[in-house]
């Protein structure tokens, strides 16, 4: 019921109320009109009857005084007719009807009626009810010269309420229709005035039930008037604020989402594995890198809920040996290196654990674990250590010779000239070797810094290759290697950095000599095509394993093959040769089989 009434719009409700009260008022007016009219009519009738009675009394007295045979019957009948009286009678002193408008009553005794009696001067008025009629009866004494001749009575019925209603209804247009018309007009005016408020009303109702004000859709009203202007202004400002608020909120949401997403993205794009464990050591968060490092299926989900030990693939015995899992040190930061797997799959992880404290001096709420794969770094470190070792050896060996020969020379007075010459020569050779090694070191440092530059110039290829052979020949001879050289009959003109190519080729041939057992075979072949110089260095040496092939051009890399390890070397030769040939826009490729030999093919474009 309430719900239904709520649905009725404000203007209609206002109009209905207005109509209801108006109709009641009109009804009240109409009824009042009937009664007021009636009382006026009755009063008028009374006044009229009183004055008429006096007039009739005078006429009757005159008739009695002037005529011997007064025609009283005619007179009363005339009186009754003239005023449409109920009846008119003359009662003699013996209280009988001497004349009566109703002729059959003449001579009958007049019975006084019971009713309310009032006096108006000489006139006595009696008001009584007879049947459905309310009757007013007036009598006045008639004075004759002989005294009182009798009484004249006139009676008239009061008009009935029905009669009055009919009378009023005859004026209904004036009494009811006019107000009704005005009421209807009022309805329209009221509706027009209230209808803008209806929109406000419905919006206010929405505001009453909406969970937040932001959900209310306030709309301006298409109408005129100061109140409408005021409302529209409120709506406009509310909407602006709302828009601003929702914009702010959306922006806030977006920024939050972005931030959340971003911090996740940031954590996930870190190369370091990051995990968080709770007080029980159970992993509650892990990033992608952590999963990639630790989880067999590289899925973050497979780490969550596990203990850190299990996540790291440790058994309880292994874990108890690590400071990371020492309960006495949980309150402090600990970092440790952990080796996992064997052989090729060997991994070195650096694991750091930091306690999470929610506030100063609070007990730790868990741990943050960072795991970094330092396998490559360890390999690089090992390679660098190896290089330093080798470099030290390479530096000390010629230095040892120089010192030993110089000292021997300085001490020996007994030395013949031939020996002195020989010793000086050795010193010279060793000094050259030392200088060359220092050059290599500098080249490497240039390579490291990326500043190895070429100084290209026109080159006599024939001479260059001869120089290379000359430098390497003694090394080949020392090991009694079958050193085969195949050169073209004629060389084209080209531009190269002669010194660097020279070093690169000496390195390639030097490796062939170093890693080929005594009595083996080395082939050095140069071919000229239309566009390039093709240089092949083939040996029957120890060869390179398939696993190590991709790493041979890495700086400081040296094979783990024992036959290679026992020969000193810096791990720089191939790296340099590769770099030099690449800088010439050439290419260095390798074919090798372990224990069978290696072939390096260098190509240099002709310029």
């Amino acid at each position, binding site marked *: 019921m309430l719900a239904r009434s709520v649905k009725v719009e404000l203007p209609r409700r206002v109009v209905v109320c207005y109509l209801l009260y108006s109709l009641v008022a009109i009804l009240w007016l109409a009824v009042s009109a009937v009664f007021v009219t009636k009382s006026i009519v009755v009063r008028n009738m009374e006044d009229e009857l009183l004055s008429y009675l006096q007039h009739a009394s005078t006429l009757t007295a005159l008739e009695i005084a002037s005529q011997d045979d007064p025609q009283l019957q005619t007179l009363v009948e005339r009186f009754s007719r003239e005023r449409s009286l109920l009846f008119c009678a003359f009662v003699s002193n013996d209280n009988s009807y001497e004349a009566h408008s109703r002729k059959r009553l003449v001579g009958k005794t007049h019975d006084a009626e019971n009713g309310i009696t009032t006096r108006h001067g000489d006139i006595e008025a009696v008001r009584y009810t007879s049947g459905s009629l309310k009757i007013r009866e007036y009598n006045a004494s008639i004075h004759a010269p002989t005294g009182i001749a009798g009484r004249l009575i006139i009676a008239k019925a009061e008009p009935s309420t029905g009669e009055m209603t009919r009378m009023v209804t005859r004026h209904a247009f004036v009494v009811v229709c006019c107000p009704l018309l005005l009421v209807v007009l009022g309805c329209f005016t009221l509706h027009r005035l209230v209808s803008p408020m209806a929109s406000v009303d419905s919006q206010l109702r929405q505001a009453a039930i909406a969970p937040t004000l932001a959900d209310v859709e306030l709309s301006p009203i298409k109408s005129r008037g100061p109140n409408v202007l005021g409302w529209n202004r409120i709506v406009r400002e509310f909407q602006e604020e709302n828009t601003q608020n929702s914009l702010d909120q959306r922006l806030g949401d977006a920024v939050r989402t972005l931030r959340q997403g971003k911090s996740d993205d940031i954590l996930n794009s870190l190369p370091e594995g990051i995990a968080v464990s709770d007080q029980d050591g159970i992993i509650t968060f892990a990033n992608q890198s952590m999963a990639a490092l630790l989880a067999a299926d590289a899925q973050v989900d497979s780490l969550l809920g596990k203990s850190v030990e299990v996540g790291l693939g440790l058994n309880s015995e292994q874990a108890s040996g690590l400071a990371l899992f020492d309960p006495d040190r949980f309150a402090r930061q600990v970092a440790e290196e952990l080796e996992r797997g064997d052989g090729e799959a060997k991994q070195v992880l650096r694991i750091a654990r930091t306690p999470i404290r929610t506030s100063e001096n609070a007990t730790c709420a868990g741990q943050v674990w960072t795991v970094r794969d330092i396998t490559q770094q360890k390999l690089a470190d090992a390679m660098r250590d190896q290089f330093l070792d080798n470099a030290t050896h390479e530096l000390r060996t010629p230095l040892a010779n120089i010192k*030993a020969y110089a000292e*021997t020379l300085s001490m020996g007075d007994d030395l013949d000239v031939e020996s002195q010459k020989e010793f000086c020569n050795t010193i010279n050779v*060793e000094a050259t070797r030392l200088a060359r090694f220092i050059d290599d070191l500098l080249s490497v440092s240039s390579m490291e810094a990326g500043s190895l530059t070429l100084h290209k110039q026109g080159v006599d290829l024939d001479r260059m290759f001869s120089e290379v052979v000359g430098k390497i020949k003694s090394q080949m001879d020392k090991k009694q290697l079958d050193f085969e050289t195949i050169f073209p009959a004629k060389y084209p003109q080209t531009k190269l950095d002669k010194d660097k190519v020279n070093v690169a080729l000496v390195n390639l041939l030097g490796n062939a000599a170093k890693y080929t057992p005594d009595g083996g075979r080395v082939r050095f072949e140069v071919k000229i095509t239309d566009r390039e110089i093709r240089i092949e260095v083939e040996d029957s040496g120890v060869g390179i394993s398939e696993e190590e092939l991709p790493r041979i051009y890495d700086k400081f890399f040296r094979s783990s093959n024992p036959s290679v390890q*026992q*020969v000193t070397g810096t791990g720089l030769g191939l790296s340099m040769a590769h770099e030099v040939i690449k800088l010439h826009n050439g290419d260095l490729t390798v074919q090798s089989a372990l224990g069978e030999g290696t072939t390096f093919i260098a190509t240099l474009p002709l310029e």
Partner: protein
Amino acid sequence: MSNSERRILVAEDNAALASVVRFNLERAGFQVTVAYNGRLAWEAVQEDDFDLIVTDQQMPEMTGCEFCEKLRTLDAYRDKPVIMLTAKGMELELPRLKAELGIAATFLKPFSPKEIVTAVEDHLEAVSEPVSP
């Protein structure tokens, strides 16, 4: 026993260095044999009886330490003085070498040939003293 009766083996892969060590030891009067790698040195000690061995640590085919370990398995060389030359001072610790392999002295390259000769003479005397009357 004079120096000329002393036989010394020099194991060194660097020919120039082996040559200058040999020259200095011979100038001091010793009889010197040179082996150019660990394997050759091992063959030499099995064939000949040397009084003292000077060996390089880093040599092809067999390092100085490996050679030394094998050497100590031979009865004749159980107590013979060995002097080691090395270019890698850092990784070779004298106390450990002395304890495990009975290395008498180590020389870091570059070394003075005169000091080598002095060391050889000192260690030969130390060995021979208890034997002399």
